[in-house]
C-alpha cells in the first residue's frame, strides 16, 4: 500500500521536502546569499537597485537610542506598518491606520499607547521576532491597501501572491487569502487559504484550506476559483527578476497588490514551502525538470523566461 502511494506521488511529480532541500535549495541557493532574503532591509535596497517596486520605507530604526524620538519622527504619518527586518511568518508586524491622542490605532481597531508602541519596537530591536534571536532592526514602511480583486475572498488583512521561481523562471504560484481562522494573516499554517494560480493566464484554479480542497471561502462564501489576478504579467516579471537580484536559484517571491501602487515585492524566501503544490493540485517536480531542459539562451533573459513560463505552464 505504501509502495503504491509512493509510486502515485512520484507519478504526480510531487516534490518532497528531502528532495527540495538536497536537490534544489542546497544545489541552487548558496548560503552566502541567504542574508539578502532573510533581511528585509537588504531585500528592499537590492530591489530598489533592480527597479523592482517595494512598499516605500519611511524609517529605519536601528538602535534603542532612536526610540525616544520615534513619536516625533512618525508625526504626521497617518498610516504605516512596522516590521522586524528578520521576522518570519508575519510575527512582530503592527499595522497602524491612524494616530489618535492616546496612541496609534491598528488595523483591527485596537489602540496602542505611544509607550507600548515604543516597547514593541524595542522588542523588535532586541530580536524577539527574529528567527535566530539576534539583534534586529525595525522597518517603518507604507501601509498596503489591498486591491479589490481579492476583496470577495479575503477576511481582513492583505492577501499576497507567492510565486516559486526556479532558475529565474516562475514555476508555480498561488495567492494566500486571509480567513477569520488565520486572524487576517496570509499565513497557511495559521489557516489562510492558498489558491493556485495558473501561470499562463493568471487566474485562480483550485484552493486548499488546512489540507482540504475547497471551492468557496469559509468566511465570505464566495467562490475562490476563476479570479483574474490583476497586473499578472508584471508580477511574473518581478518574480523572474529576483534571480538576477539575489543569485538564488530556488526562491519563493511574495508580492502584495496595492490598489494604488500595483504589485509590490514584500519579501523573499530561500526555503519556500511545498503547500503550493496542494493549492495548485499538482506536483512541482515536473515543472522544475522542464525548466532544467530550457536552452541557455532563454534562461539568460528575464523577459524571455516569463514568456516561456506563460507559454508552458497551464
Amino acid at each position, binding site marked *: 500500500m*505504501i509502495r*503504491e*502511494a*509512493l509510486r*502515485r*506521488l*512520484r*507519478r*504526480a511529480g*510531487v516534490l*518532497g*521536502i*528531502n*528532495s527540495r*532541500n*538536497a*536537490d534544489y535549495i542546497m*544545489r*541552487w541557493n548558496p548560503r552566502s546569499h541567504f542574508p539578502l532574503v532573510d533581511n528585509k532591509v537588504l531585500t528592499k535596497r*537590492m530591489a530598489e537597485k533592480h527597479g523592482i517596486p517595494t512598499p516605500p520605507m519611511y524609517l529605519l530604526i536601528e538602535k534603542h537610542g532612536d526610540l525616544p524620538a520615534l513619536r516625533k519622527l512618525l508625526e504626521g504619518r497617518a498610516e504605516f506598518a512596522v516590521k522586524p527586518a528578520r521576522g518570519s*511568518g508575519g*510575527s512582530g508586524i503592527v499595522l497602524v491606520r491612524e494616530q489618535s491622542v492616546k496612541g496609534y490605532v491598528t488595523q483591527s481597531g485596537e489602540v496602542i499607547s505611544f509607550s507600548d508602541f515604543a*516597547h*514593541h519596537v*524595542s*522588542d523588535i530591536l*532586541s*530580536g*524577539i521576532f527574529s528567527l535566530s*534571536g539576534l539583534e534586529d532592526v525595525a522597518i517603518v514602511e507604507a501601509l498596503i491597501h489591498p486591491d479589490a480583486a481579492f476583496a470577495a475572498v479575503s477576511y481582513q488583512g492583505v492577501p499576497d501572491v507567492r510565486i516559486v521561481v526556479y*532558475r529565474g523562471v516562475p514555476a508555480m504560484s498561488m495567492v494566500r487569502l486571509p480567513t477569520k481562522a488565520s486572524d487576517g494573516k496570509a499565513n497557511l*499554517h*495559521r489557516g489562510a487559504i492558498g489558491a493556485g494560480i495558473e501561470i499562463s493566464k493568471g487566474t485562480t484554479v483550485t484552493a*486548499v484550506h488546512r*489540507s482540504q*480542497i475547497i471551492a468557496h471561502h469559509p468566511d465570505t462564501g464566495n467562490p475562490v476559483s476563476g479570479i483574474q489576478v490583476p497586473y499578472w504579467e508584471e508580477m511574473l516579471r518581478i518574480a523572474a527578476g529576483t*534571480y*538576477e*537580484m*539575489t*543569485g538564488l*536559484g530556488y526562491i519563493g517571491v511574495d508580492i502584495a497588490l496595492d490598489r494604488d501602487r500595483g504589485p509590490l515585492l514584500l519579501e523573499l524566501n530561500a526555503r519556500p514551502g*511545498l503547500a503550493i*503544490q*496542494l493549492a495548485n*493540485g*499538482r*506536483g512541482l517536480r515536473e515543472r522544475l525538470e522542464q525548466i532544467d531542459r530550457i536552452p*541557455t539562451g532563454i*534562461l*539568460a533573459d528575464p523577459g524571455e523566461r516569463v514568456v516561456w513560463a506563460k507559454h508552458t505552464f497551464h
Partner: protein
Amino acid sequence: MRPSLLSGDSAMKKSPALAVAVFLLILSAALVSYRIFFLGYPVLPAVVETSWRLSVRAEIQPRQEEEIQILLALPAEGGGRTIMEEQISSSSLTAGVFREGSNRFCQWKGESTPQGVEISYESTILVRPQKTPAKGIPPVSGDFAWIDKEDLLLAERLARPWTALKPAERIGAAAAAVRGEWKPVPAAADLDAWSALQKKRGGLRALHILLRAAQVSAQSVEGLRLADEVRSRPLRWIEAWDGSVWKILWPETGEIEADPASLLPLTLGDIRALAASPGRLISARWSMSRQVTSAWGLHFERLRSSGRFLDRWSLFSLPAEFQRTFRILLLVPIGTLIISVLRNLIGFPTFGIFMPVLMALAFRNTGLFYGLGIFAGVVFLGYAVRSWIDRLRLLLVPRMAVMLTLVIACFTILALAGQQFDLRQFMAVGLLPFVILTMVIERFYLLVEESGVRQGIETALGSAAVSVIAYGIISWESLQMTFFLYPELLAAVAALQILLGRYTGYRLSELFRFRSLGGTT
C-alpha cells in the same frame, strides 16, 4: 551579484557522498575484522560468559633445609576455555610457568625455610559455550611399564568377549564392569582375581588396565569440576578414546560423565596435580567459585596484558570512571541516526535534533517513567507561565533567564518532594538538561502560537517518543559493549548517516500530506 548562469553545472557533479559512505563502511569492517581475526576479539562481545575463579593454596614442609621444588598443574586454554588474571605467589620461592606436552605447570624453586613454604595460585577461567564439542586429539601411546604382566593377562581374559565390539561399546562394557554388571559374566575365579586387583591397584588403575586389555586408548586425568566447591585434592578420572572423542569414566562408580564440559582437566597422563620434592604436603586446597565480575572486567584484563597497538589504544585502557562515560557516549551517534531516520524518512516532528538524545541521557538517572512525567509536567507548567509572562513584554534574554529560573525552581521543588516521599528518581532530576528543557518550553510556546495547539502537541509527543527510543538504544548493554570494544563502528554509523543525508525520496508523512495530489489508481 549577477549569478553565473552556468553555476548549476558545477553543482551538477555527483555528490561523492556514496564514495565516502562506502569508504567509511569498509574502514569500519576492516578494523573490526582485524580485531576479530588477528587480535582474537570475541565476535559477539556481549554474549554472557560464565567465568570461574580458581584458587589453589598449599603448604609444604620441606624434609631438609635444601633446595625445594614444587610443581603445580595449571589449567590450560582450549575447549572454549580462556585463562585470565593469573596470579602466582609464594612466600620465598621463585616461580616459573612452563608447558610439558598438553600440561601446564608452575614450578616454584628456592631455598626452603624450616617453617615450611606456602604457595598460591589464582586465575579466572572464562568458559564460552561452544556449539560443537571440541574435537578430541587422538591419543598417543603411553607408557605402560607400571602394568604387571599377570594383571594384564587377567584383564585380557575378562575383555576377550568384547573384541567384536566397537571402541565406544567396549568403553561402555568396561564402565559396566566397574559397576559389577559384567556382560557376559566371567568365571568366578576371574571375578575374585579382579576384585583383588582392584583392591591392590585401586579403582583407577584397575579400570586403566581393563581398558588397555580391551584395546582402548585411555589416560588418567587429574582435574576439577567447574562448580562451587573446595577440595583438598583434585578429582581423578579416566579418559578413554572412542575413536572420535574422549569419554570420561569415573573409576569409583563406573559412570560415564554426561557433561564433560563441566570438568576442568589439570594434568593428563599419570601425573599428580601437585608435587613437592623433597618435601611433604601439609595442606592443599583447590577452590572453585563462580565469578560475579562482569564480562567487562575480563576484556579489560585481557587487553591490558596485550602489546598490540589496537589493544593498547583500546578504550579499556581508560580509567574505569571514564569508561562508563564512553559506553554511553559511543551510542549517542546511533541515537542521532535514529532521529535522522524518524525525521527524514518518516517525517516525525521533534524539537530539534539533540533534544531527544539529551532527554534520553537524562532518563538514565530518573528512569523512563519518572523522566517522561517530569518532562511533561515541567513543559506544561512552563508553557502556562510562558503564556502569562508574554504580557510582561520582557526582552528576549531576560525572559529566557526567567524561564530557566522557573525550570530550576521546578527541579528544586521536585528534589525536595522526592526527599519527603522517598522517591530517588525525583532527586535525580537535577541532572536533566535544564537548558534544553527551557528551550523546549520556548519552542513549544512559539509552535503553539504560530501553528496551533495540535502541531505543538504532535511535536512534543514526537520528541518524547524519539527520546524513549534513544533511551532504549543507549541503555542496551550488549550494544554498549559492542561499540566499546569496536569504536570503529562509529565510522559505519557515520556512513549510514551520510547515506541517509542523500535520501531525497518522500517522507512517509508526505504520503498523507500530499495524498490529494496522488489521484486515484
